[in-house]
């Protein structure tokens, strides 16, 4: 992944040899991705924090099984997502996840007129609302690919499905989202 520091492999080797400092660095490096992934699954910041912490502890104990030279992101995501899913199952309840747009968010560099900006913002909020209303599988695959910006391999790890299934699931989820967008447009 672009922007990733080049010495992940070295950190993992050091951690596997028993360096707690190296492992803490790994945690710091991946905690945001792990926490957001857990948040998308658990729909709760508190549960996401607990499951992420637990997952990092379990990952530490499983370091011996991490294959040297492997990509750490899918490995970590798989452990985090498993923990988050287990937490959701054991909690036996669903919280309502509402991804929101940050206040004043305006993509791109153009400076639109106030009217155009208001309309664009409203469209984005509407799109996000429609995503929040999707079925669980659709919402998770879209959130993983576009909001968490995971690769296919990482999405497969996070969702606990084969990588070959990611593409078809995403395609169907996008088709259903598009249908909802069209439906909302015609009823507006």
């Amino acid at each position, binding site marked *: 992944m672009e922007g990733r520091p080049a010495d992940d492999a070295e950190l993992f080797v050091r*951690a*596997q*040899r*028993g360096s*707690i400092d190296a*492992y*803490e*660095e790994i*945690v*710091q490096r991946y*905690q*945001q991705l792990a*926490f*957001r992934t857990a*948040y998308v699954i658990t729909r709760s*910041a508190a549960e*996401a*924090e607990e499951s*992420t*912490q637990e997952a*990092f*502890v*379990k990952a*530490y*104990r*499983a*370091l*011996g*099984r*991490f*294959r*040297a030279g492997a990509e750490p992101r899918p490995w970590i995501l798989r452990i985090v997502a498993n923990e988050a899913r287990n937490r959701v199952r054991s909690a036996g309840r669903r919280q309502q996840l509402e*991804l*929101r*747009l*940050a*206040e004043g*968010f*305006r*993509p*791109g560099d153009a400076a639109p007129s106030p009217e155009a900006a208001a309309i664009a913002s409203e469209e*984005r909020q509407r*799109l*996000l609302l429609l995503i929040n209303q999707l079925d669980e599988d659709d919402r998770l695959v*879209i959130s993983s690919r*576009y*909001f968490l*910006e995971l690769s296919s391999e990482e999405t497969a790890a996070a969702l606990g499905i084969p990588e070959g299934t990611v593409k078809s699931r995403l395609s169907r989820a*996008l*088709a259903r*989202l*598009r249908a909802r*967008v*069209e439906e909302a*447009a015609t009823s507006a």
Partner: protein
Amino acid sequence: MPELSELEQQLRALAAGIEWPATPALGGAVRRRITSTTPRSYARPWYERRWAMAAAAALLIAALLVAYTPTRNAIADFLNLHTSINRTNVLPTPSPLPPGPLGQRLGLGNRVTLATARAGVKWAIVLPSGLGQPDEVYLQSPLSGPPQGEVTLVYGSRPGMPVSGETGVSLLITEVRGNVSETFFGKIIGPGTTIEEVIVGGHRGWWISGHPHAFFFTGTDGEIRDETLRLATNTLIIDDGGTIVRIEGDLTKQQALDLATSLS
């Protein structure tokens, strides 16, 4: 009406604006958890774990039938080979080995080159003569194995050495070093298995043969690493000048002793 590509563009544009909850700083909390002396996930005694649950009844009986001394720790000290041994009247039937690469199935650690293994441990790894280079080499990290690591040499098929039904290879040689009080290997032995003391090159050892016995690795906390629990075939364990060498294969006693003598 957005086309898929346009919809995808919109979704990508949304990503930067998602209002995520603040990411908690987890480094310190995780560090405290993993350096704690009572880690949560390792708190259960080994006999309560997955595979051993299936054998629980037999193992409880085993505690009463130990052939040598009352506790497995006492046996470990007696053997002085980092190995605990329990005897039982009925050897439990283990679960089949999971599919996957050999090292993963047997819990041997990461596959490495012999040079990497040599660089990764502080002792001089010994090899038997006459078998050529091992086909695979595995290095077990101190995190999940012994504090100084553990090396396993795999010899897939060699003339005169049948491929074992338990491991799928002719020969496994595991080497480890540690303090006398540490236990790295465990065995559960049924009535069809014999154990006898041997001397190899002036060093003490044990030849375990007959019916397959249950074998497992223990972790740094001394608890069983349940993913490694499996049936093992004939095994010779020797103390080779402080390095504990475990030789496993469908070998005769003489073959095992010859291999041990040739280690260098």
